[in-house]
Structures are given as structure tokens and as C-alpha cells.
């Protein structure tokens, strides 16, 4: 048991580059697998949380742009959403990586300042940008759909009360949209976390073997030639993560719907949406 504690000490933060440099190669124990894969989960959580948090705002802007009457706003938003929803995330990762690699190594001169570019090719930045854009497109489509299904009566009631413009949007339209979109958005969040496992399999190199949960799982499967231990461990971690996301989003969902009588409150239903 104490040796397992040592393993946790050595490899608990290995995915961030803290602790033992060299990954276990021979006589791999179950404890080592659980610890290292768990430390890889830190990356999945990092990518998922940041992409979702930033994507939420951009998605709102995109949804509004898509609903706008002016074609100058609508067309670009539609094109953006189509490109990111219509192509595989896997290809988007590759394309982004190859494009970022082409940036000049020495940085870009900009008003006498030199902008460093090399960090963009690292997974923590490059892949995060792709995930951010991708989840923005998917969420924007969800938000736009919800905006289109805001009941007419709500808008008319607002009109009757003399609520118009920004305050109508902020107090009537947007909260209703969010409430209607929330179950689908929960799904999006879950599958964004799942999509983060693609990062280190798609061009972005795992610098100094700092990878995510699936990266370490496939490392172990390769080393032990036994897929029946490491993959179920990742699966277990992700089930826990999924349950946590459902709990958190379910709490928000209850808050968003707290003014409604019980029977009319929408319940979260998890539908698979998978690979993007």
C-alpha cells in the first residue's frame, strides 16, 4: 500500500510534468495505471472546462448573429457554424496544427514588438483554440434553435408591458433561450469532454510524454499488450466525469426552471451525439 502512495507521489501530476520523468516500462502495476491515467484526466478537464467557459460567450454572440436580419452578420455566422459542425474535429485538429506550424518560427514583428508563435503549436494552446471554436459552433446552433423556439406569447407580453430593446433581450429573451437550450447544452458539454481525448491523437505531439488520460491508457495497452485493464480505467474516469457534469448542469437546470410548476420543468436527458 505504501508503494502505491509512492507511485501517486511520483506520477500523480506527471501529466503536468511534475514528478518522475520516466514512465513505468516494465512490471507495470495496477496502481501505476490508475495514477498515471488519472493525472492525464487533468488535461481532459483543463481542455473541457476552458473551451466550454470561453465557448459559452462566443456561442451566444454567434447565435445572435445567426438570428440577425442583416446578412453581414448572419452569413459569416452561418458559414462559421457550418464549417465547424460539418467537418470532423479530427481533421480540424490536423489542419490547425499544420497551419500553426507554418507560422514563422522567430515570431511575428508587430509595431516593433515580436509576437512569439511557438507556443501556439503546443497542445495546451493550439488544441484549446480548436476546441473553443468547435464547441462555440455546436453551442451556437443549440442556442439559435432555442432562440427560434422562444414562445411568441412571451415577446408579446413583454411588448404589452412596454419592455423593449436591450432590457427585453436581457430580461425575457435571453433567459428563456438559455432555459430552453439547457438540456441540449448539457449534452454538448458532456461530449465536448469526450472529444478532448482526440487531442493527442491528432497531430499535436505530447511534449515530454505529457498527455491526457487516453494517451496514457494507449501507452499502457501498448506496453502490456493488454487492453482489458487500461481502457476500462479511462472508461471509469470518464463515467465519473460525465456524472459530475450531469450533476452540475442539472443544478443549473433546476435553477433556470425554478419559477415553473414541477410538471412543466424539463428534465435532462442524455442523448449521445458523439464524435464531431
Amino acid at each position, binding site marked *: 500500500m505504501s508503494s502505491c502512495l509512492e507511485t501517486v507521489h511520483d506520477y500523480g501530476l506527471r501529466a503536468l510534468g511534475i514528478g518522475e520523468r520516466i514512465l513505468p516500462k516494465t512490471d507495470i502495476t495496477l496502481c501505476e495505471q490508475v495514477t498515471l491515467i488519472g493525472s492525464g484526466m487533468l488535461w481532459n478537464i483543463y481542455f473541457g472546462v476552458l473551451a466550454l467557459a470561453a465557448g459559452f460567450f462566443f456561442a451566444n454572440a454567434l447565435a445572435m448573429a445567426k438570428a440577425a436580419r442583416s446578412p453581414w452578420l448572419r452569413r459569416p455566422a452561418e458559414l462559421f457554424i*457550418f464549417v465547424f459542425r460539418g467537418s470532423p474535429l479530427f481533421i480540424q485538429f490536423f489542419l490547425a496544427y499544420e497551419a500553426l506550424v507554418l507560422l514563422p518560427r522567430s515570431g511575428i514583428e508587430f509595431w516593433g514588438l515580436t509576437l512569439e508563435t511557438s507556443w501556439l503549436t503546443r497542445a495546451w494552446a493550439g488544441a484549446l483554440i480548436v476546441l473553443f471554436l468547435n464547441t462555440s459552433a455546436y453551442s451556437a446552433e443549440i442556442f439559435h434553435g432555442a432562440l427560434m423556439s422562444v414562445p411568441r406569447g412571451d415577446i408579446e407580453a413583454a411588448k404589452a408591458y412596454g419592455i423593449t430593446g436591450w432590457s427585453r433581450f436581457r430580461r425575457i429573451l435571453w433567459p428563456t433561450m438559455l432555459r430552453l437550450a439547457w438540456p441540449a447544452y448539457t449534452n454538448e458539454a458532456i461530449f465536448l469532454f469526450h472529444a478532448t481525448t482526440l487531442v493527442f491523437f491528432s497531430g499535436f505531439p505530447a511534449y515530454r510524454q505529457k498527455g491526457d488520460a487516453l494517451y496514457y491508457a494507449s501507452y499502457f495497452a501498448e506496453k502490456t499488450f493488454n487492453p482489458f485493464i487500461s481502457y476500462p480505467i479511462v472508461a471509469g474516469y470518464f463515467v465519473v466525469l460525465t456524472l459530475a457534469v450531469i450533476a452540475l448542469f442539472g443544478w443549473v437546470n433546476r435553477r433556470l426552471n425554478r419559477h415553473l410548476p414541477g410538471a412543466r420543468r424539463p428534465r435532462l436527458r442524455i442523448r449521445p451525439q458523439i464524435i464531431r
Partner: protein
Amino acid sequence: MTAGTCADPATLEGLAWLGCYLSTGKHMMFYASFGTVLALLAITAPLALALGFLGALASRARLLPLRIIGKTYTAMVRGVPDIVFFLFVPIALDQGLEYLRHRIKCPDWTEPVRRGADFVVCPAAKLPLSSTPQIWHEAYGFALAVAAFAVVFGAFAANVLAGAMNAVPRAQLETAEAYGMTQRQITRRILIPQMWTYALPGLGNLWMILIKATPLLFLLGVEDIVYWARELGSAKTSAYSFPHPDWRVWYFLALLLFYLGMTKLSEVLISRMTASLARGQATLGGEARRKAAGA
């Protein structure tokens, strides 16, 4: 002849060079790999649909063990990233098959199959046998990939179909019961014919997702379009007959456009199918269609 031929690309310039470059043997293999993707789609879609169908039926079965299997199958893809299954299923299947053959073909082999970090079966149990030609090794790899896709997408299809089966109005099934039909007859004659309209939007969605999942073939070691895009796009020195800098970004841009085209095409086809299935249905879509035709 003033213009050079493809045999001597160094003398070529501009479009002629590009034309020759894009028709090299390697590029032909790249184009053929698009066929691999389409083949995967053509084989996987019906397989996944069949598996999904069985899964959905099993999750409604009266028999408890069968129902548990069905429910587990439909639930497994909800919490766990599908890529885990894509990596897991081919190896697991490969080892499972080899182990079975090992037990059958070499019963007197006493040493354990798993030895430390190794998985050893007797030579006669290897799949495919080491003496078989290369083409069969590739076909076996492709078959494992198809199996992985079918299992994962079967689970997704099972979700869609189970939802569609639940969406068939209860009254329809109760009427059939009142007519004295057996459970099996109800399923065959009432439930299955009626569920398709409810299933179509979900299945259409699934088809789009399946298209977008095809680049994952690369992860399974199949020489697919991603493999060739990386291979052909990487910088070529003057040791090659067509030297060029790192062009991978252009190749991936081409792949992106290919997928966008596939998505657009599918969207158009699916919306047509939905329209024709909605004809004569007592749903909102059918009603809209009736009104449009009457006007």
C-alpha cells in the same frame, strides 16, 4: 516537343508540373483511399443499423438478462468517449479471436497465453497466419476497424431506435393486443413499420456523425485519407522527383472541403427523404406537406 513529360518533372513548370504531380502513383493511392472511406461507410452503416436494431429490441425484451444486455449496450456510449472504444474493440477482438483459435487448434499448449507484457498464442492460431500474403493482413485490419465502427455506431443506433420504438403511440400497440395479436406479431407488424418515421431524424443525424467519424480509421492503422495526406503533404527534398515544401496544410484543407461536401450532400438527401416519409403521416410534417400540396 517543347514541354517536358511527366517522366522528367524537373523540366516542367506551373500547371503542367502540378498536373503531373497530382497524377503520380502515390496520389492515385491517395485518391483510392477515398474509396476506402466510402467502403467503410457502405459496410458499416447497414451493420450498425442491424446491431442497433438488435440492441433496441433487446432493451425492450421481457427476459431480464436479455434486457440487461440491451440496456448496457445502449448506455455504454453515453458516459465513455467513443474513441476509447475505437482503440479498445480492435485489440480486444483480435486477442479474443486468437485466444479462441489457440484453445481449439493447440489444446496441448500448456504455457499461459499472457506472460508478463506479452500475449503469446501458438503459431497456428495467429490471425491472419504469418504465411498469408500482405493483402490479407490489410483486409484483416480493415475488418477489425469495421467491427469497431459497427459496435460503437450500433450502440448509437440502438439509442435512436429504442427512442423511436417508445415514440410509437401506445394506442396502436394496445389496439393490436385487443385484436389478440401475440407480442411477436405486434412487434413485427405494428411496432417496426411505424417506428421508422420517428427514427429517421435521429438516423440521419447518426449518418452525418458516421461520416465525420471516418477519419478515425487513421487511428486504427488503416491507410486512409489522413494517412496519405500526411504522407504526401510532408516536405519533399530534391531527392524526390517532385520536391516541395511542407504542404500538409493544403492536403488537410482538401480533406476538410471533402467532408463539408459530404455533409452538404447528405443534408440535402436526408431532407428529401424526411419529406417523402412525412407524406400521409399524422404528424406536423405531414400536415405541412398536405397544406403545401393543396395550396
